[in-house]
C-alpha cells in the first residue's frame, strides 16, 4: 500500500464523495416528494391519476437505474430535452426512488386499521385532522424501516453516476486505476469513502428500527 499516493489523492476522493452525497441527498429528497404524492394518490384512490401512478411504479421498479439514466442523458436530448449530468443524476434517482418511497409510505398507511380513523372521526375530527394527528404519525413510524432501507439503496445506486460522466467516487477510482495502475490504493480509498457515507446511515437505520420495535405499536 502506497500511503503517499493515498494522501495525495485523498482530496480528490473527498471532492468526489461530496458530489456523490450532494446528488444523492437531492435525489432522495425529490424521491420522497414523488413518493408522498404517489402514495397519497393511491391512498385516496384518485381516478385516472392512480392508474398513471401504478404504471409509473411498475416501470420504475422493473428497470435498472443505469438504463433510466442512459435514456434520460443520451436519449432525451435527441427529442429536444437536454439536461446536464448533475440534473440528470437527480432526476434519475428521483424517478427510481419515487416508486420505492411510494411503496414504503403506502404500506405504512395500509397497516393502520380503518377503525382508527373512525375512532378519530367519532371524536369530531375532520378527515384532514384524522390524517394529520392520528393516521400519519403512526404510518410514518411504521414506514421508517422501509424508508431507511430505501435511503441506503438509493445512496448505493448513485455509484452508477460515473456512466453519465459525473465525477463521483466510481469515476475517480476508475480514472486513477486507468492512469496510475494504483489499483489497490484506489480501491481502498473507494471502499473507505463509501463506508464513510453508508455506515452512519445504516447504523441510524438499525437504531431507529430497534427503538420502534421497543415502542411496539399496536395492541
Amino acid at each position, binding site marked *: 500500500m502506497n500511503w503517499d499516493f493515498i494522501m495525495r489523492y485523498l482530496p480528490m476522493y473527498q471532492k468526489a464523495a461530496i458530489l456523490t452525497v450532494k446528488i444523492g441527498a437531492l435525489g432522495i429528497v425529490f424521491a420522497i416528494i414523488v413518493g408522498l404524492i404517489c402514495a397519497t394518490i393511491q391512498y385516496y384512490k384518485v381516478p385516472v391519476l392512480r392508474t398513471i401512478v401504478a404504471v409509473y411504479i411498475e416501470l420504475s421498479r422493473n428497470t435498472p437505474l443505469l438504463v433510466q439514466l442512459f435514456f434520460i442523458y443520451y436519449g432525451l436530448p435527441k427529442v429536444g430535452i437536454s439536461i446536464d449530468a448533475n440534473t440528470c443524476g437527480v432526476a434519475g434517482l428521483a424517478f427510481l426512488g419515487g416508486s420505492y418511497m411510494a411503496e414504503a409510505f403506502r404500506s405504512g398507511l395500509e397497516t393502520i386499521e380503518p377503525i382508527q380513523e373512525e375512532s378519530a372521526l367519532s371524536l369530531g375530527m375532520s378527515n384532514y385532522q384524522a390524517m394529520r394527528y*392520528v393516521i400519519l404519525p403512526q404510518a410514518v413510524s411504521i414506514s421508517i424501516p422501509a424508508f431507511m432501507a430505501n435511503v441506503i439503496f438509493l445512496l448505493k445506486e448513485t455509484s452508477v453516476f460515473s456512466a453519465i460522466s459525473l465525477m463521483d467516487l466510481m469515476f475517480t477510482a476508475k480514472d486513477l486505476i486507468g492512469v496510475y495502475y494504483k489499483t489497490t490504493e484506489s480501491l481502498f480509498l473507494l471502499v473507505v469513502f463509501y463506508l464513510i457515507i453508508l455506515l452512519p446511515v445504516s447504523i441510524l437505520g438499525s437504531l431507529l428500527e430497534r427503538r420502534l420495535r421497543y415502542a411496539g*405499536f399496536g395492541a
Partner: protein
Amino acid sequence: MEKELLTIEHLKKSFGDNVILDDVNLTVKQGEVIVIIGPSGCGKSTLLRCINALEPIQEGQILLDGEKIEPKSKNLTQLRQKIGMVFQSYELFPHLSVLDNIMLAPIKVQKRPKDEVKEEALALLERVGLAEKAKSYPRELSGGQKQRVAIVRALCMHPEILLFDEVTAALDPEMVREVLDVMLNLAAQGRTMLIVTHEMQFAKAVADRVIFLDNGNIVEDAAPDEFFNHPKTSRAKQFLNMFAFDDVKPHEKV
C-alpha cells in the same frame, strides 16, 4: 317531560343486497339509558355506527336535536362532537400517551384552552381510578384500563349522548367489572346512553329500556324487568335461553 334527544325514523341500511337494518324506529329521551341486545349479526353494531354517520344509510333519517345526521352532513364534525362513541377494540391512539389521547380532540377540534382540558382530563381519569396512568402509553395498560381511558376520551368532548359498542366483549372476565362500574356511574349521573352488550345482568341493572334487535328489526322494546322476566316474542325467549344452562352432571343424576 324530558326532551327527545335522538330520533331514528324508518332507518334502512344495507350492504349491497344484504339488508342489515330494516325500518328501525327509535326515540331516545334525554337522560335515558337504552340497552340494545340481540344475536350476533342482528345489526346492533351497525345501528350505532349509523348513528355516528360512520356508515351511509339507504332510507329513513336519524335526527340529533332535530339535526339530520348522515355522512354528507355539512356540520358532521359538530354533530359527532355531541356523540361520544366507545369501541369494542378501544381504539386508543397508540402513538399518544393516555393524557394526549384524551386531550387531542378537545384541543384540536373544539379549540379549548389546553390548561382547562388537562385539568378536566386528569379529574376524569381520577374518577375512573387511572390518575397515575396519565403519562403511560396505551401498550402499557391492561384491556380494562384501556377501555376506561377510551370512555374518558369520549366524555372529555362533553357529548350529549354516549354510544357503547360491546365495550367489554374483548376483555378478560376479571376486567369486565371495572368497565361496567364506570358505565353504571355514568348512568347514575343521568347521562344519555345507548349500550350494545351481551352482559345480561348488567343490562338488567343499568337499562331504562331494553331493545331486542333481531334480523334488522326491533322485535321488543320494554322495561328491563318485563323483558327479562316476560319476553313477549318467541325469538326473544329463545335468545334469553341461550344464557341459561341445564345441569349435566351424570353422577348427581338419580
